[in-house]
């Protein structure tokens, strides 16, 4: 076992892990941060996307020891300080960008990474950026719309309620 220490959502987090312990397992099982989900075993679905040192990564495809000393952000740390939904989260609710909610944490974390890199993405850029996030419920329409809305773009011309 190796002791790891990292900053998770602004707080120190440490624990003893095996070499094979994935970052996603450390977050879910050691830290009780079960918002990071595991939907596949081939690093494709993206339900586990978190930010490590500011970059989006798949927490199921990184060992906890590799995040030792890192700054980690998860879905649990995304809301505003007063507990209200942040701009991206609020856009997902406003535009019905989620149904079962299982892929949602990864989608929100990917969206946050996208908007940091590209503050006004086009539809095609949003769709392309989500290549590593699979949603089975929404058909992506409202996810794409929500992310574009969160970037401050007018989405009223995009069909739907």
């Amino acid at each position, binding site marked *: 076992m190796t002791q790891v220490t990292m900053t998770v959502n602004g707080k120190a987090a440490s624990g003893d892990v095996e070499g094979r312990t994935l970052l996603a397992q450390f977050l*879910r099982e050691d830290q009780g941060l079960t918002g990071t989900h595991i939907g596949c075993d*081939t690093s494709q679905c993206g339900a586990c996307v978190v930010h490590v040192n500011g970059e989006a990564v798949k927490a199921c495809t990184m060992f906890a020891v590799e995040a030792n000393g890192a700054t980690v952000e998860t879905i649990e740390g995304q809301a505003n300080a007063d507990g209200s939904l942040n701009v991206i989260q609020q856009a997902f609710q406003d535009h019905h960008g989620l149904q079962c*909610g*299982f892929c949602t944490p990864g989608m929100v974390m990917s969206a946050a990474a996208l908007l940091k890199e590209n503050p006004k993405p086009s539809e095609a850029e*949003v769709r392309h950026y989500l290549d590593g996030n*699979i949603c089975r419920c929404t058909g992506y329409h409202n996810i794409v719309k929500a992310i574009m809305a969160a970037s401050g773009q007018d989405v009223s011309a995009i*069909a739907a309620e």
Partner: protein
Amino acid sequence: MPKDGGIGASSKRREDVRFLTGNGNYTDDINMRGQAYVHFLRSDIAHGTLTSVDTSAAAAMPGVIQIFTGDDFAEIGGMPCGWQVTDKHGEAMQEPKHPVLAHGKVRHVGEPIAAVVADTLEQARDAAEAIEVEIAELPAVVNMKDAVKDGAPKVHDDLTSNLCYDWGFVEENKAAVDGAFEKAAHVTTLELVNNRLVANPMEPRVAIGDYNRSDGEHTLYTTSQNPHVIRLLMGAFVLGIPEHKLRVVSPDVGGGFGTKIFHYQEEAFCTFAAKAINRPVKWTSTRSEAFMSDAHGRDHVTKIQMALDADNNFTALRTDTYANMGAYLSTFAPSVPTWLHGTLMAGNYKTPLIYVNVKAVFTNTVPVDAYRGAGRPEATFQLERLVDKCAHELGVDPIALRRQNFITEFPYATPVAVEYDTGDYVATMDKLEEMSDIAGFEARRKESEAKGKLRGFGVNCYIEACGIAPSNLVGQLGARAGLYESATVRVNATGGLVVMTGSHSHGQGHETSFAQVVAEMIGIDENMIEIVHGDTSKVPMGMGTYGSRSIAVGGSAMVRATEKIIAKAKKIASHLLEASEGDIELKDGAFSVAGTDKSVAWGDVTLAAYVPHNYPLDDIEPGLEETAFYDPSNFTYPSGAYACEVELDPETGVVTIERFSAADDFGNIINPMIVTGQVHGGLAQGIGQALLENCAYDEDGQLLSASYMDYAMPRASDLPFYDVDHSCQTPCTHNPLGVKGCGEAGAIGSPPAVVNAVLDAMRSGGSKVEHIDMPVTPSRVWAAMNG
């Protein structure tokens, strides 16, 4: 103006807040004190005799608590099948035993052979590798037509053949149908495959068994769409646990799409093992396990024929379908290719004579059962591809041919035993033509051609039977369950309500839309209403969510219970207002006496019910809680017309969806935002089936598409923005909300439009192709255009 609450409002979903902040409570998020983990050793051979399972070395490995094999379950009931189909000779289907753990033989890749329970999951996996399994391999049957040939290897030695049933519907019509074909001016024939799919909800299945020695109660936490059904099936038929000693909880469930309806071995195992080892036992499926253990969907091979008269009227339809059951009968498998498929073969058309034959076949593959649409996508695909082929052969416009044959008068009794109550297929087609800008298509085609691409346009109609289902009818058809729904409405003293519904939400947003209905009925704020579901200890009874039934059946039960609440509340109000009960009106959350300014607030009445100081105790009991069971008198019949426009790269065969329009008639709508979202999701799954998804086996029964590396899940970049409309509304006539259901429409209605569009594009490039099977991959398109 959009409403800001109640029925018809696009209320924001209240469940979103917990999902968006990582506070959902999915089954895998639950960890029990002292829990052990189970790993299932699964067969990597499709068919063989299990000659030996030696667990002795494995049992001695670190952390191992106990290892179970088929012998441990030999005396226990098999996994039950909930529907018995009667074949065309009046005989019951062949129904093999489906053991919890393989016994005697293995019959598909992925079948569990042994279960290792250990302190940690990795210890269980380590020990599973030390189990010595000997399997004498037998030839596998994979192809359905081969499986029913004389001399084919038998999946089940104790059955007479691999034929589960040979179903004729309506058998009495067969001679008349054949006669009509003899007299036909034109006959169109089409042979096609409806590709096998894997439902793939993003949350893999999870089961946690727990046993309380002090009161003898078992608890199963499971990712199910219908926890009460699991309680009944597992308690009564597998483990022999009475329902009052068995609690089943399905908390937040991350999508279902049908595959989480069924009762699975892992659920029974964890429940059983928790008592056996006196510790909670947890199983979490990996995605790779899901591919070989979740029930698959579709997998039909069909020959369909249409007879037309000289004026292009449809005069008769007949079909021959082989439907894959897989190695065992999953919970509702036999009903899918029969009662959910044959009864829909009339589609939107007044074809007077129809005969449907379905041969259900056992193969050495994962069991096949309902997946979003379940039988209805298969019916729609073959019929709507056939109608397009008719039009092509006759040289007539495919939309005109459809319009000419539309059913236009309702109610309409089809020749396949159902009666459509309402619909307006002309209106949805009119709407579709407007949405899809057919007039502009030729210009768009020219733009594509200028880029070296081909462009195609395809349409289809669909009809579905939802709101499943009248219990007395399905009982006659072989269902071993009733298909009502229940709801209990509990009003608290301070005026808030808790609705306990047997419907289960796993993405559909019931917590929001169900509350809208009750809020509308009473005239109070939606936030005063809490929707509780997914726990057999909280909800009295439930048949769950599938078949687009929740709002039509579960919602109706809730309406009935709420009506009872309102009736009793009016009695209390009449006492408080010292007025006649018949004069009491409920509006905007207040009771008033008609024609006066006397009124009493909702909260005053609810308080009186629980603090009955000034209360008609001689007349009525205190308290305000009512339960209703609602059993529908008919199915509901959502319908619609869909159009797809594709661009095809003739050099690579790559097809992209450029436009997709959907005009649906769902009857009345509770929350338009949620309904639109349901259609979007269905469309993505239908387009996925048409272009991307394919669950494939090789001839030895090895699963070729066993992970997301080979099973193509639709991504955002594979799909367009959709144009969705549900302004055509012919309300259902037989449920109190006038609703029809919307969950499956997109998946049912989209595949034929996509394929019709691709064929149109291919033909515009000079191809003579008549049909192409799904998924329409670039490789297949290229081969068809260059073959």
